[in-house]
């Protein structure tokens, strides 16, 4: 196995699969490198996440990836990444597998697939410089089918909304690993919902939906895959689901390098549990009678002065006569209070003052997830859920995508 590759391109490929390496088993976590006639495929099989990157061979002009001899090898992933990054400053590197055989007799006895050797990564410009790593001549077995996506969406939007909706994923003390995100796609929009039984986050944005889709996926594991996606809006992401149980989700994204080389990154996420409350039923029951617009910066300023992140609860008072919201530092009314004006305060029925205690942590996390200048607050009563609309609102009053946060107040 031998190929020559631009070091930066090699590093980019490794970055796209690095999150699947098990940080607790650094030595045992392997990257499989398979070299075919026209591509180099690198794979990592994690616990519930598998990643694969395919780098297409291209020799025109810059010789970004030139394949000299097909073959395969598996190398300790963390060491490979460190080794490639230690060669920083070198333009191209030559990667070669050199089997180690003690005697000719033993070489005959050794099965090809089991033979071990060294993977040497050498600078082409300055030939003597390089690194050698112990490896085995065997590929990591990761099988990800060719794409037949259910939906194709904008990478930037998907990354941003996915990250923001995670504010409600899992309880503070529970592994988000077991917190699911519900993804549904129908028509031309995708909705993602997470909850921790105290608040609900829901985001919705446009996508090219090819097949109707509804799935519960482990938030934290999918977040690892999403974190590796390119943020370039041109590199659209495709999502595909398996038909079997447990649900397996596949993410695909094209991989480009300086507009000169092509490839593809593939991720496989396996669901762990199908526990998820009936959020839609709860949201349908909510009937908001009061709404108004609050300036995000004014709200953030107040929260900063109160240092709300470490508080348990904050009292919120909506004053109908003054069109303002009073925020107390905590539920004790004797403590500091700040006022924030509420624009376009509208009551569907009679005007009334409202008072509720909400979680300080949830409020501050929610406001920091807001995307535009204004936040729309919707309330129905003191004991039912409050809603914050955090999506960026454009001049015509419509928003490109929405990010809604529902709070359950203290009783």
């Amino acid at each position, binding site marked *: 196995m031998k190929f020559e590759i631009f070091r930066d391109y090699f590093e980019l490929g490794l970055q796209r699969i690095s999150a699947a390496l098990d940080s*607790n088993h650094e030595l045992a976590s392997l990257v499989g490198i398979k070299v075919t006639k026209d591509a180099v495929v690198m794979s990592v099989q994690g*616990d*519930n996440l598998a990643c694969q990157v395919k780098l297409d061979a291209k020799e025109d002009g810059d010789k970004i990836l030139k394949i000299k001899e097909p073959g395969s090898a598996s190398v300790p992933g963390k*060491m490979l990444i*460190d*080794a490639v*990054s*230690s060669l920083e400053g070198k333009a191209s590197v030559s990667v070669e597998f050199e089997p180690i055989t003690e005697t000719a007799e033993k070489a005959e006895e050794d099965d090809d697939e089991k033979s071990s050797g060294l993977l*040497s990564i*050498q600078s082409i410009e300055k030939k*003597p*410089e*390089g*690194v*050698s*790593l112990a490896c085995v001549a065997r590929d990591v077995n990761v099988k990800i089918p060719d794409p037949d996506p259910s939906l194709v969406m904008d990478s930037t939007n998907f990354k941003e909304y996915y990250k923001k909706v995670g504010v409600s994923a899992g*309880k*503070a*003390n*529970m*592994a988000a*690993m*077991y917190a699911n995100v519900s993804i549904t796609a129908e028509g031309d929009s995708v909705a993602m919902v997470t909850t921790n*039984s*105290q608040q*609900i986050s829901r985001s919705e944005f446009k996508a090219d939906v090819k097949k109707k889709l509804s799935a519960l996926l482990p938030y934290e594991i999918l977040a690892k895959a999403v974190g590796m996606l390119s943020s370039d809006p041109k590199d659209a992401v495709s999502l595909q689901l398996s038909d079997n149980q447990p649900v397996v989700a596949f993410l695909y994204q094209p991989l480009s390098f300086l507009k000169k080389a092509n490839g593809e990154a593939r991720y496989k996420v396996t669901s*762990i549990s199908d526990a998820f*409350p*009936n*959020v839609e039923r*709860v949201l349908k029951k909510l009937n908001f009678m009061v709404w108004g617009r609050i300036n995000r910066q004014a709200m953030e300023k107040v929260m900063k002065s109160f240092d709300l992140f*470490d*508080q*348990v*609860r904050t009292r919120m008072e909506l004053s109908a006569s003054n069109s303002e919201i009073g925020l107390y530092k905590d539920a004790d009314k004797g403590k500091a209070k700040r006022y924030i004006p509420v624009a376009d305060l509208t009551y569907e029925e009679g005007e009334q003052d409202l008072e509720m*205690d909400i*979680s300080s*942590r949830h409020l501050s996390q929610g406001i920091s997830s807001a995307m535009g200048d204004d936040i729309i607050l919707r309330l129905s009563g003191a004991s039912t*859920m409050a809603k914050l609309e955090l999506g960026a609102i454009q001049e015509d009053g419509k928003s490109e995508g929405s990010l809604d946060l*529902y709070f*359950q*107040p*203290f*009783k």
Partner: protein
Amino acid sequence: MERRFWWLDSTDWNLAWAKLQAVKEKQLSEWEWMSWDEDDFSSAKEAEVSLLREIGIPSPFSDGKVVCCQGLPTFHKKIAKVLKDIPEGILLVIMAPFSKTSSLYLKAKKLHSCRLDECEDISSMNSRVEFVGKRAEKIGVRLDKECCYIVAELCGKSHDSITNELKKLHACSEDGVVSRADVMQVCSAEGEAVIFEFTSKIVAGEREQAHEWLRRLMLTMAPQAIVGWLCAWARSLCLVASCRGDVENTVKLAGQLLKLEKVDDKRARCVQMYAKTGRFYHAARELNMSGRPLSWPFVVMMECHRLELATRWMAKNKDGLELEMHRAIGRMMGTSERLRPIPLPVVEEEPKEQRGSKKYEVINAKPQDH
């Protein structure tokens, strides 16, 4: 439900757990149940904010919520202050040994909405013998007074170890009748009894309880000792699986293996005696009842070997080892992760510019110019 606070004395953990399960299944099956543990938080303040939020905000998805707290939180004085404000529809359960001088205990005693379930005091020998008799009757083991005395003497003052030994006796006896000889052969020291309970949870796939037992074991036993017990358990499971769950054949096989290993006669007899009475019967029963495939013990064995290696690599890193053990039992039960994470050990990261240069040999590197 009027009750808002319930303190279950976990000195008798089996009884406390049974009570909790009974409430979960019969009275509050529709409520949302969540477990809470202070160890899962990076700081005491973080834990405090989280628990106070849990007992203040009702669930939007169900009629009520039960917050089960393992161990007495360090900020129990703060809980005492808000005890009377716990709203209707929320039940805070604390499973911890009673601390009778704590303000939480004293406050809870005064309030009608609080319940305190204390377990039986077995510090004296007479009370212990009486406790063994009562618990044996509950489990379905028929013991005479002499046997009760032996069990009480062997198992010490721990409610849990007595209960576990009685369960073991029940598993070994055919009709619940146990003789003095059976007691002498089956009952063992406290550490082993707890391991017995722990492995039962692994076989049954009760994730939460298995992780909880491991956490409790780690408080009292060295990780190496736990791994040693787990390996012994895995070996007996594998032997049983090799004989397709047949105990008689397993015992014969164990005897043959001992001969092959050239163990001296005296030791072989001891092991066989032990094997006949408890170990393989229990392993076979566990395996057959669990419905797991016969290949499963070998998966367990592989995990145990990995753990054995881990104990050598990480001999001084107890936190790291505990995490490894949680991950291993998670994999044994069919999941890759444990239910609740423990805080990871803090590792100081090496500065980025130094990476690579130290670890890997540069082939024929040119000498640096000075």
